[in-house]
């Protein structure tokens, strides 16, 4: 009953979204602002209706109403309430509804808050967002209805896939969607600006925070996804270059390029065409990401054509690309930048290089992800492109990006002299060399690892010395203590220091990733009472232990981990059996310290009472997690900075080296 009502709401929302596309245009053509306003109200109403439909689905989950097919497929009575709620995005139809819910919220927000400040473009911003909404609502009302009913009504649901019953998995999809959908706001402003021929920097400046927000959500979403893979899948790593993972990484890469390149437009009035292209590509990759994950194309290239969702997504994707780029090329002549900078040793150059590297990585990931699909679809050849391909190309480019982060921090806009650079880079380069030499002396022979850690040291040193210098200068100028000076330095230039804090987070993230250079793995079979030695740990198998946990039965191996004769931790690697699922699930046990993770998987219980364990040592993993608070702090700082519209020659003032950006 409630679910039927929800479906009707979606159908009405679909009609309203069509109205919201056509009417703003009419309003502009007839110069009738009342029409634009009515489209604005339609956008609010869509949000309310989608909210109602979502509430109907939540209601069905909470009351275990298995007459709703989607609830039957993804929920069961014995599931904890948290997973009953997160099952909302546990399957395709619910995910699409969640996407539409967030998008309709963003659209309503934009339609309300930017109506005065961006009066010239707002009708087409509303129209563009409604085009995307129409697409999603069309799917929801037609082929992917999450509220469709079943008859006869099943007595019990099939349960959410146990792999998804993990806190990280409750968070990971919504965060990714917030990222994807967040990029649709700058995209809509870009398209509206192209339609209106309003080709100044307004769209970039207006949507700066949306871009940051989208970037942050996507970043955290990807990190949480890696955490989930690490803890739940039990193969020992957090990133496997799986197409599903790559799908979220691609918009992140182009989005990161965009985030940097809009600064060139904001500060230097450069890169206008490029920024339009980047936001179009980023939005298209968000659509492609959802397509890859949700259409079933990965199960079989041929199966996706039988679902209606796959072709619908591809058609929409093609439409977005063709229409957007056509709009852009029509305005090409007006978009040529009046300012160019052709000095090699300048901040501008580092931004260009930064974009080149980001796009190089994105292109590599795109090829590696899409090529096997194309090969299978076109030639019928089955092949898989493996992690070494991605690692070999992405890792050097990523390290180069991190080095560039350091260079960019110190180099000035427009022009830097060589002697200035030598003076400023003395200490960071020394730090890099000392680090590499120390590691080599400790016995590290892997060239890639030495370079990676040297670059980590270099960039960390640049960030530290640059910030230290700014704080000292400020303390002397104002005659205040260092701590107060540090606070005031940051607050005086939030955008710059927000960026630096995020870059510091990147340093930590790369430390965590570079730890995989020294990982080790061993499989061992132990009978109760026996122990084995691995990487300085003594692993002692006490015996089996069976536990109940929520809706699952855990068959665990009780493992005591000793180091230097002392008990460090008792671990319970396990296999969990769910009543709704025929196969057990691996429950990894991890002992974590600053140096490394000891990661134990219960691979099998053998006849005769022995267990086979896979034991891994994953160095420095925890360091990647230190990036999370830094990303949050940095984003918050940059978020609360309010940029001004650039009037042409205004950037001339105050471009001293240290005060760069």
């Amino acid at each position, binding site marked *: 009953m409630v679910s039927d009502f929800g479906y009707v709401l979606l159908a009405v929302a679909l009609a309203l979204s069509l109205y919201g596309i056509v009417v703003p245009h009419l309003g502009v053509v007839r110069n009738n602002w009342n029409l634009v306003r009515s489209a604005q109200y339609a956008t609010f109403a869509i949000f309310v209706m989608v909210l109602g439909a979502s509430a109907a689905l939540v209601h069905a989950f909470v009351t275990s109403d298995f007459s709703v097919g989607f609830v039957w497929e993804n929920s069961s009575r014995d599931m904890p309430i948290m997973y009953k709620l997160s099952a909302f995005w546990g399957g395709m139809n619910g*995910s699409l509804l969640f996407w539409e819910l967030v998008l309709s919220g963003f659209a309503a927000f934009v339609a309300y808050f930017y109506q005065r400040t961006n009066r010239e473009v707002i009708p087409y911003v509303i129209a563009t967002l409604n085009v995307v909404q129409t697409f999603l609502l069309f799917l929801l009302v037609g082929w992917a209805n999450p509220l469709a009913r079943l008859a006869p009504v099943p007595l019990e649901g099939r349960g959410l896939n146990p792999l998804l019953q993990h806190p990280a998995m409750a968070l990971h999809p919504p965060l990714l969607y917030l990222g994807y959908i967040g990029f649709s706001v700058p995209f809509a402003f870009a398209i509206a600006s192209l339609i209106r021929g309003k080709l100044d920097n307004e769209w970039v400046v207006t949507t700066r925070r949306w871009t940051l927000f989208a970037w942050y959500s996507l970043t955290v979403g990807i990190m949480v996804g890696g955490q989930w893979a690490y803890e739940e899948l039990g193969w020992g790593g957090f990133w496997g270059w799986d197409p*599903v993972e790559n799908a979220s990484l691609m918009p992140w890469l182009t989005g990161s390029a965009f985030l940097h390149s809009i600064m060139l437009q904001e500060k230097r009035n450069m890169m206008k065409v490029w920024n339009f292209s980047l936001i179009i590509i980023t939005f298209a990759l968000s659509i492609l990401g959802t397509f890859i994950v*949700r259409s079933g194309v990965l199960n079989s290239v041929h199966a996706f054509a039988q679902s209606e969702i796959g072709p619908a997504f591809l058609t929409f994707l093609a439409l977005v690309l063709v229409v957007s780029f056509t709009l852009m090329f029509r305005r090409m002549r007006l978009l040529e930048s009046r300012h160019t900078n052709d000095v090699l040793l300048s901040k501008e150059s580092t931004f260009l290089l930064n974009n080149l590297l980001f796009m190089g990585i994105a292109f590599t990931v795109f*090829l590696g992800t899409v090529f096997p699909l194309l090969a299978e679809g076109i030639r019928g*050849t089955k092949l898989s492109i493996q992690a070494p391909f991605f690692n070999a190309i992405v890792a050097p480019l990523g390290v180069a990006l991190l080095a560039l982060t350091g260079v960019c921090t110190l180099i000035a806009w427009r022009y830097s002299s060589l002697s200035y650079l030598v003076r400023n880079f003395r200490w960071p380069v020394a730090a890099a060399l000392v680090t590499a030499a120390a590691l080599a002396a400790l016995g590290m022979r892997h060239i890639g690892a030495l370079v990676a850690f040297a670059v980590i040291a270099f960039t960390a040193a640049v960030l530290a010395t640059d910030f230290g210098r700014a704080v000292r200068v400020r303390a002397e100028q104002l005659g205040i203590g260092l701590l107060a000076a540090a606070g005031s330095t940051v607050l005086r230039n939030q955008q710059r220091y927000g960026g630096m804090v995020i870059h510091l987070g990147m340093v930590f993230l790369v430390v965590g990733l570079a730890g995989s250079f020294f990982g080790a793995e061993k499989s061992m079979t132990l009978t109760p009472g026996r122990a084995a030695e691995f990487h300085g740990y003594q692993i002692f198998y006490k015996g089996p232990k069976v536990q109940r946990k929520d809706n699952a039965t855990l068959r665990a191996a009780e493992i005591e981990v000793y180091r230097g004769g002392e008990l460090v931790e008792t671990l319970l690697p396990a296999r969990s059996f769910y009543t709704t699922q025929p196969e057990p699930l691996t429950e990894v046990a991890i002992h974590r310290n600053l140096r490394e993770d000891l990661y134990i998987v219960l691979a099998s219980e053998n006849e005769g009472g022995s267990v086979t364990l896979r034991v891994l040592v994953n160095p420095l993993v925890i360091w990647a997690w230190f990036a999370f608070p830094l990303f949050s702090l940095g984003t918050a700082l940059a978020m609360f900075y309010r940029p001004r519209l650039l009037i042409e020659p205004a950037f001339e003032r105050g471009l001293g080296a240290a005060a760069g950006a």
Partner: protein
Amino acid sequence: MGNHYRVVIGAVIILAILGGILYKGSQSTVFYFTPNEIGQAPERYLARTIRVGGLVVPNSTKWDPDAVTLWFTVTEDFNSGIRVRYAGPKPDMFREGQGVVAEGILDERGLLWASTLLVKHSEDYKVDPKQVTDKKMAYKSLLRE
């Protein structure tokens, strides 16, 4: 003048990336074959990494927990098959008669020295693409044909 340098540097980087993609791409691409394809001309598949997919022949499994080694035969028609030696723990879902994909190197005796083993879930296990990971993924496209 600087712009000239920048174009050169950019071009060098782009060429390096493309070269890397071509070189590494050809190195890290692994093709799938069926046991019968290999059985017809085993010499063509020697000394390179391949993926072999098929069903586990009943009573062909030998699991040696102390050496952590799993032996089995994969087949597509139960007439002929490829013997596999997998150096690693027996996966949870490994069953005789079920679909697997083994990745490794074929030796002259026709034994596949597998370093990776992917196991198919049982049929009624609903697998949403979202949840499927590399280790659980690749078999599906193969075995559904």
